[in-house]
């Protein structure tokens, strides 16, 4: 988004009336999010089972790990048989798969996509570069540790992680969800200030609201 779109300005509407627009306040919801408490225990157990068996991945290839997504969707590995599907929009997805290194420019979009996903949501990080920077540990444009910016549920190490290990990671994620540990969304909201401080430290031109509803 270019910054010009976000400036306060006067516009003429389609019906000819001139009015003032302040996009940061008018177009976005500035309310602070609050944690969502789970339903009662027995129901939540059933829900967690359903969640674990129906994981919808956001189709966002953030890095080179995206190249192993296609084998996952196709005959050899076929993740669909485990209830995993790809959704093109963040609103309908449950799992954000950060496939590899994140440049600062992408991190901004990833945060935006992540915040638009609905609670409960999970993050899976592929590749060594999300754990400690991996091969790009000294690069000026890639982050080193994803868990400082987003609550990560499962890390899959490797460069690239093979499809088998991604499948194993997904199985691990399922176990976590079934055990009721997939509460990353609430953890993110509870520690929002810390996450936001870290994010704003590296995203120098922060031109979006603090929480993208």
């Amino acid at each position, binding site marked *: *988004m270019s910054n010009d*779109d976000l400036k306060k300005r006067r*516009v*003429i*509407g*389609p019906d000819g009336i001139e009015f003032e627009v302040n996009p940061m306040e008018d177009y976005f919801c500035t309310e602070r999010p609050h944690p969502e408490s789970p339903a009662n225990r027995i129901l939540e157990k059933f829900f967690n089972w359903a969640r674990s068996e129906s994981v919808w991945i*956001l*189709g*966002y*290839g*953030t*890095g*080179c790990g*995206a*190249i*192993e997504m*296609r*084998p996952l*969707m*196709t*005959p*050899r590995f076929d993740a669909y048989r485990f209830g995993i599907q*790809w959704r*093109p929009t*963040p609103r309908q997805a449950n799992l954000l798969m950060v496939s590899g*290194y994140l*440049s600062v*420019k*992408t991190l901004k*979009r990833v945060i935006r*996509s992540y915040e638009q996903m609905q609670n409960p949501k999970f993050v899976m990080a592929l590749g060594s570069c999300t754990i400690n920077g991996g*091969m*790009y540990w*000294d*690069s*000026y*444009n*890639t982050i080193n540790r994803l868990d400082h910016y987003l609550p990560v549920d499962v890390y899959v190490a490797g*460069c*690239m992680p*093979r499809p088998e290990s991604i499948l194993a990671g997904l199985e691990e994620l399922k176990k976590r969800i079934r055990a009721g540990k997939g509460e990353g969304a609430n953890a993110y909201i509870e520690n929002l200030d810390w996450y936001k401080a870290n994010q704003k430290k590296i995203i120098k031109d922060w031109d979006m609201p603090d929480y993208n509803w």
Partner: protein
Amino acid sequence: MKYFEEDRSKFPPKNADGSFQIDLESHKFTHIWQGPQHPGVTGNMSLELIIQGDEVMQCETHVGYLHRGFEKLMERRKYIQCFPLVCRICVPEPDFNEYCFAAGVEELAGIEVPEKALWIRTLVLEMARLASYLMWMGGAAGSLGHGLPGQWTNYLRDYILDRFEELTGGRIYHMYILPGGVRNDLPEGFKQRLLEVLDDIEQIMKDVKTVMFNNTVFKKRTQGLGIIDPSWVEPYGITGPNARAAGIPLDVRKDSPYLKYPELDFEPVTGQESDAYTRLDVRRRDLLITVDLIRQILNKMPENGEYMAPLPNVLNWEIPRGETYVRAECTRGEYGYYMVSDGSMYPRRVNVRGPSYTHAVALMEKLVVGVNIADVAALMTSLHTYPPEIER
């Protein structure tokens, strides 16, 4: 351009340079972003589109989402330490990077590569081309809403990756071509297994042709879409299949032969119409040529021989001062490495010339104007762009 030519009187006036005068506040245009989180965009890049109705008026390509600063990182690493890095520049076909970098180092340092290594390198490059084409074929069909060919070709690509794994130990990143040669000889029985895969590919490509290229809907969507005028090839720096589809037989393998290509028998595929359909078809025929080339290589390759030239101590390897440019033909066009050495153990500067650099930015912005928004994804896959090589 053909779709909406009935009434253009309500279109905005044009500027002197041919672009439309667009006033976003007039509420006649929609300002939308395709990408970076968008399944129809190849890789992680984005198109900022301004549309009127269904027709694109203006487009701006935004790249940089995958920038890792390779060229800076290489300046901090010794030549041999750069090898794990270079293959990661272009994800779907890392071997072209490895070859270009190795060839550049060899030229600067004056190393002779043994005969067998040259043959194996040619084989690896052609296999990489095959794998990349097969994956791209699925993407091209998928961008038109046709999932079936993508499933078939990706399934075949897995077989190629298996052969790669057997040969190099890696599925995606191989780090196989080192300066002076290659890391290892062919394993036993490799040729036979590779030939079996090639037979499979030829079989399935016949089905793909029937289902995809002979399909009326497919033809209706792609014929006449995004026509590249042959006169644009030079000002826009178009190379590879995109130029060949315009009838200009540019192919580095033929023009300035490297490795063992002079000893192989092939003709570059060219097309006439230069629209999306021709570009797709040129790639399909190029894929079949690649299959044929691999057969030729396996036939002509000597059985025994050295595969690695002796190197100096690579950890203290000082390469004499100089500069060079090495190129190879990858699936998208001319891939090149411009390397400058200042006589130290570290490269002074490495610049990567990816073919998508020109295709995805300047050319895409020109081609997409006037196209229906439903065709933007198809147009983009027909140009075959990979963002990682644009921004490195």
